[in-house]
């Protein structure tokens, strides 16, 4: 039995598998964007303030995207996991 009305267990399983794959494929590049922007920000101490702002935005947006992806994954997991 699934929480989403009318969804068969097979369909729910397929959706979970799809979300898992998408999640896995996106999490790894996101981790690199967040890690590398943090490293650049630490290393490049003598850069234009506007350039520092670009790095900061890159880092913050990477983290925001990661949080959204985690939320999305949790929501799909909640809706398609058998109770």
């Amino acid at each position, binding site marked *: 039995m699934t929480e989403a009305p009318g969804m068969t267990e097979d369909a729910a399983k397929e959706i979970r598998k799809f979300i898992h794959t998408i999640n896995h494929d996106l*999490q790894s590049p996101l981790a690199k964007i967040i890690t590398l922007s*943090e490293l650049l920000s630490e290393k490049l101490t003598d850069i234009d303030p506007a350039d520092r702002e670009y790095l900061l935005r890159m880092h913050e947006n990477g983290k925001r995207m990661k949080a959204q992806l985690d939320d999305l994954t*949790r929501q799909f997991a909640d809706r398609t996991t058998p109770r």
Partner: protein
Amino acid sequence: MREHEKPKVLIVDDDDSLRQIYARYLSAEGFQVAQASNGEQALLDFQDSRLDAILLDIRMPVANGQVLMPALQKSHPHAHIIISSCYDLDFQKEMIGGADSYFNKAEGCRALLGKLKAVLAKHPGNPAVR
């Protein structure tokens, strides 16, 4: 870990670029760093090496972290194991039994350094207590 020696950490991760980023960062922070790109290599190449900590990716081809952890705990009972993954801890709860810490790769290198120092400071020179 003897006082005069740098702490030695083995990074096991099939993602070459992230593994090298961590290796470079931790070397600059005073660690001796060894690398393995999969579980099999970690077991074969570092079986007799002194290791103070192991950063172990959970999802890898050729013996993933879940399979590898019991073998590493047996071959390196003094090493502290930090599980690493791109996923949040709550997605991985079932996979981290026996590990000393958990590192989400999206936390960045500074957080990794903090976690490594924390596990090493907890039991300096002593067998890992789990």
